[in-house]
């Protein structure tokens, strides 16, 4: 199955989903077949003057993930993720990374067709 990226506040499966996509602390990239995972830091996007969402989308695209689970995605990042062919599951904040993945696998995370954050130019 295709790899899943989850915006995360910490480096393991029990960390909370970071509700902010662009300025997330990092991303956990999971192979759903084996549940093996790796952590990719997003610190460089957090301090950017502008375009954090775009940079975060580049980072996720570079991991080869085809699915992204997160809280809020702004319009530019949404456009970028779409162009990269990454499916977006929004509004999975208030869960751990593990719970978010389980919920996605159970088919309980609807795929977004529009950004759910109007963005704050950040």
């Amino acid at each position: 199955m295709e790899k899943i990226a989850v915006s995360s506040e910490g480096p393991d499966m029990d960390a909370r989903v970071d509700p902010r996509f662009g300025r997330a602390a990092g991303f956990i990239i999971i192979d759903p077949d084996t549940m093996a995972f790796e952590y990719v830091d997003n610190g460089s996007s957090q301090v950017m003057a502008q375009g954090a969402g775009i940079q975060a989308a580049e980072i996720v695209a570079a991991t080869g993930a085809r699915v992204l689970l997160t809280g809020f995605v702004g319009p530019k990042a949404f456009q970028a993720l779409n162009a990269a062919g990454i499916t977006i599951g929004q509004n999975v904040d208030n869960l751990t990374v593990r719970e978010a993945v389980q919920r996605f696998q159970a088919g309980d995370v609807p795929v977004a067709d529009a950004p759910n954050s109007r963005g704050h130019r950040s």
Partner: protein
Amino acid sequence: MREILILSGKGGTGKTSLTAAFAHLASGLIICDLDVDAPDLHLILQPEKLETEHFLSGHEAIIRPDDCERCGQCADACRYDAIQGEDPPVINPLKCEGCKLCVEICPAKAIDFELNHCGDWYRSTSRFGPMVHAQLFPAEENSGRLVALLRQQARAMAEAKGLDLILSDGPPGIGCPVISALSGTDLAIIVTEPTVSGRHDLERVLELCKHFKIPAGVIINKCDLNQEQAEGIEAYCEKHQLSFIGKLPHLTAFTEAMIRGLTITEFSSNGVRESIKTIWDNILKLAAPKPVLDRAADD
């Protein structure tokens, strides 16, 4: 949680004085000054700073004269004419946009690229509640990001304290910082005055609200300055289906209250207080959560 932003387009219409009065009349709110360039709200609210944080944003290129080979390529490439002089060339920080082109193309690798400390921001407490504000250092880039950061902090603080209203004093103009203050806010209130400038700037800021699909309401301050203009603005609001929230006459009490570090509602007679209270109640009505359908259409 609702975010109410007070704007004016044109400066000097009484935006900050009214924001301070609303902060006095409201309860359970976070107060936020988003005019990070020339902030004035603290002069009335006199907040006590609890925490000060550095605001770092963007980079500034700096030439190391000892390593520079005087080849002039940086000055030729810079589109901001920021590189001045030849022996050695010096980068004018007021003109440098922080684009990194010179750093990248310098054959001697003689240009450093340093993170810029361009202001401070504060978590404070005031007599009307918690306050988030900032001061950009003079002559720094007027960063929309500092505005975005303050809003993010205000929201986090509201959530942590279980408060559900954020009242923000906005920057003048319609450019970068205003766009940052406006995007995604729940309601914009525009304080205007019945002058040709007030009217002109009102129309531009309302166009901006429309562009970002933010509901807007209008207050006319100093409405007795020019009856005809005032009526014109009211008619404009009606024609464009904008909420007209209220008007106030020219009151010298605004200045007198400001001098004493008070809001006009703390300083003035019952009459003035009542009319500002009515305006605030109208704003709250307008800011009440919208039906779900509306929201979905917005996002």
